[in-house]
């Protein structure tokens, strides 16, 4: 039985292998670093992520040379896939994590209690988890990638050991996250039974299709499993009614960790949702479509309403994240209803993807700014801390204004086009009431984004918080570039929309 053994093709997984190897190297080298600033560890971490980006780009070009259609590469017994979606989302993930670490460098330096070396290593492990999730083509690898990501994040939330709120947040995140993982796994095991032992995403889809054609579908077990899977996904995306962990974790964690949780993992969660629901379970779409619509409407309602009452900007952004994820789900739900119109299907999914990508870009800059304003012994996370920001630094007040306007969906910033694309897909699918609800809740949401602008421009700074902003030039430049990108992409949205469209080609069913 061992005669036909073939060594798997490691090449498509080169970025993952490189990242894991470098993580081990950094872990060892960090032992010799004496400086409390950990410059070597930090530089190596950034270099590793850059190396991964180059490798992914190289793989993408090679696939282009091999065939005009950029055929996806499968390896490790089809458990791993390297396709357009994987390449694009992985590149975005690297740059998001790189920016996250740049922004958080000074923040964690100012806080003695956070162990620096471990922070970078755990961030790399989390990145590896995201990459595995993005490239997963098998229920097992999706689950393992998710665990790698989640466990690393639980630990980083608790890294600041002197803070009681951080410990509490980590505990909540851990318990609820473990519950969600359990649900997801349980759902997967039900599907495993119902599809006669299929775990590979393509095989599951094949099984469902053939069972559908033969008319011998045992719907009960399938839907039973599906409910658990959707619940698990909803936990990870943080949509209502599975959102309880989000505000506490965003608030309790150190801001650098909040950014690590808030930005890049959303990309991985999107990839996981698309691969599971669209790639694997499209034949059950009639069932999960209704669930997603319900989750979306509830999230937009709760997220936008509760955000109005917040006095802490991290909590406010957490509720804003809930409503944004709800909006993103609208696109996924809308795509299915237009399944007879292939172009509509494509437009709906790429609109969702565009939404996630632009949301990650905006939230990255927003938390980056919060960290820029923080200093030793001062978190700058209350809304009151933004009072009179215009007097302290007109430039960064303008940057924050761009971000808030974009999140609110004011025209000619990127957030507007993201909302517009999703709404168009929803209208195309014929669910007018969904579109109306989405617009109404976005209007309500605009209030709290605009309030931040009012606080920055029309209120006087608090007495103990009136000094100008001090930070290294590079961080300031990066935050500015990030915020300006939000404005610039708003001028040319079709470019990014086109890339989203092209990268989804491999995942969607052959039309």
């Amino acid at each position, binding site marked *: 039985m061992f005669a036909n053994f073939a060594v*798997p093709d490691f090449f498509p997984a080169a970025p993952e292998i490189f990242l894991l190897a470098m993580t081990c190297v950094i872990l060892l080298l960090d032992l010799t670093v004496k400086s409390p600033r950990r410059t070597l560890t930090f530089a190596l971490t950034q270099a590793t992520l850059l190396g991964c980006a180059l490798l992914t780009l190289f793989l993408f070009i090679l696939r282009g040379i091999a065939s005009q259609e950029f055929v996806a590469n499968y390896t490790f*017994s089809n458990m791993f896939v390297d396709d357009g979606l994987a390449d694009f989302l992985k590149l975005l993930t690297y740059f998001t994590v790189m920016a996250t670490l740049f922004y958080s460098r000074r923040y964690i330096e100012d806080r003695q209690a956070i162990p620096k070396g471990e922070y970078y290593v755990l961030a790399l492990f989390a990145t590896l988890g995201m990459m*595995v999730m993005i490239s997963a083509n098998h229920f*097992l690898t999706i689950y393992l990638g998710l665990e790698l990501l989640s*466990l690393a994040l639980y630990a980083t939330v608790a890294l600041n050991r002197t803070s009681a709120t951080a410990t509490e947040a980590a505990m909540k995140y851990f318990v609820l996250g473990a519950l969600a993982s359990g649900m997801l796994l349980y759902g997967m095991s039900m599907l495993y039974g119902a599809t006669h032992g299929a775990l590979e995403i393509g095989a599951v889809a094949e099984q469902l299709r053939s069972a559908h054609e033969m008319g011998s579908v045992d719907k009960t*077990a399938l839907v*039973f499993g599906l409910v658990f899977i959707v619940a698990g996904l909803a936990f990870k995306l943080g949509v209502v009614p599975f959102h309880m962990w989000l505000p506490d974790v965003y608030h309790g964690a150190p801001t650098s960790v909040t950014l690590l949780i808030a930005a890049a993992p959303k990309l991985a969660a999107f990839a996981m949702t698309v691969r599971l629901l669209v790639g694997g379970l499209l034949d059950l779409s009639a069932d999960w479509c209704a669930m997603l619509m319900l989750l979306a409407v509830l999230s937009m309602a709760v997220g936008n309403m509760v955000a109005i009452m917040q006095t802490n900007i991290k909590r406010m952004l957490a509720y804003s994240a809930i409503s944004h994820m709800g909006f993103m789900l609208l696109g996924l739900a809308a795509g299915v209803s237009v399944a007879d119109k292939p172009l509509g299907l494509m437009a709906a999914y790429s609109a969702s993807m565009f939404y996630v990508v632009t949301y990650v870009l905006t939230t990255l800059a927003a938390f980056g700014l919060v960290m820029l304003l923080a200093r030793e012994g001062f978190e700058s996370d209350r809304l009151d801390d933004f009072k009179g920001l215009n007097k302290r630094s007109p430039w960064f007040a303008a940057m924050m204004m761009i971000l808030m306007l974009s999140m609110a969906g004011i025209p000619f910033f990127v957030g507007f086009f993201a909302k517009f694309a999703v709404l168009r897909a929803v209208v195309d699918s014929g669910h007018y009431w969904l579109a109306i609800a989405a617009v109404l809740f976005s209007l309500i949401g605009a209030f709290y984004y605009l309030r931040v602008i009012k606080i920055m421009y029309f209120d006087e700074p608090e007495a103990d918080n009136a000094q100008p902003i001090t930070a290294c030039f590079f961080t300031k430049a990066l935050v500015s570039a990030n915020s300006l990108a939000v404005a610039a992409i708003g001028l040319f949205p079709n470019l990014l929309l086109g890339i989203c469209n092209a990268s989804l080609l491999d995942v969607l069913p052959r039309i």
Partner: protein
Amino acid sequence: MEFKTLIFYALAAILIFAALRVITARNPVHAVLHLILAFFTAAGIWLLLQAEFLALALVMVYIGAVMVLFLFVVMMLDISVDVVKQGFWRHLPLGVIIGLVVAAEMGLVLGGWTDAGLPEVAASASNTRDLGALLVREYVYPFELTAAILLMAIVAAVALTFRGKKPGSRNSNPADQIRVKAADRMRIVKMQPEIDLPVVAVEVPVETASGAKE
């Protein structure tokens, strides 16, 4: 009824009893012992399913290593169960209801299940060998990912619990202890020989008995 079915029901009954005792036992040591019984019985059920490798792994790894360690910890920590179990009876009805609902839902689903029975395997098939081959061939990617997760868990556990050297602790560095030479331990000091001074008689005033009386 087949003999195997009889054994299954016997094992299942013991398993459920042991699992119940784990959460109801007053003494934490008894709870751990019942957990060991539960694991052992589960291993028996696996043997019935012809999964001898998993059964042995459960006995050796879980009972042999993990549970023994657990027992040590429980004995050393001296946990007060009454505090942990506060509200157990108060929350019990809700827990039972939720458990029953879950069981009923699963029953509804499994009711329509057609049991295909176990696939026939050749008597010579070794599932240790099969599992090993599967792990390093088809499932090598998840296997390596699991290794990465364990490594990450170690890093996280150390980062969360290691608080550095405490100030004022009397830890000694083993490397320094090994590197020490005889010269470091004993110092020979040159000094003038000490000369005993001649003893000078000192007049000690003697109190007279009469003086004490006055």
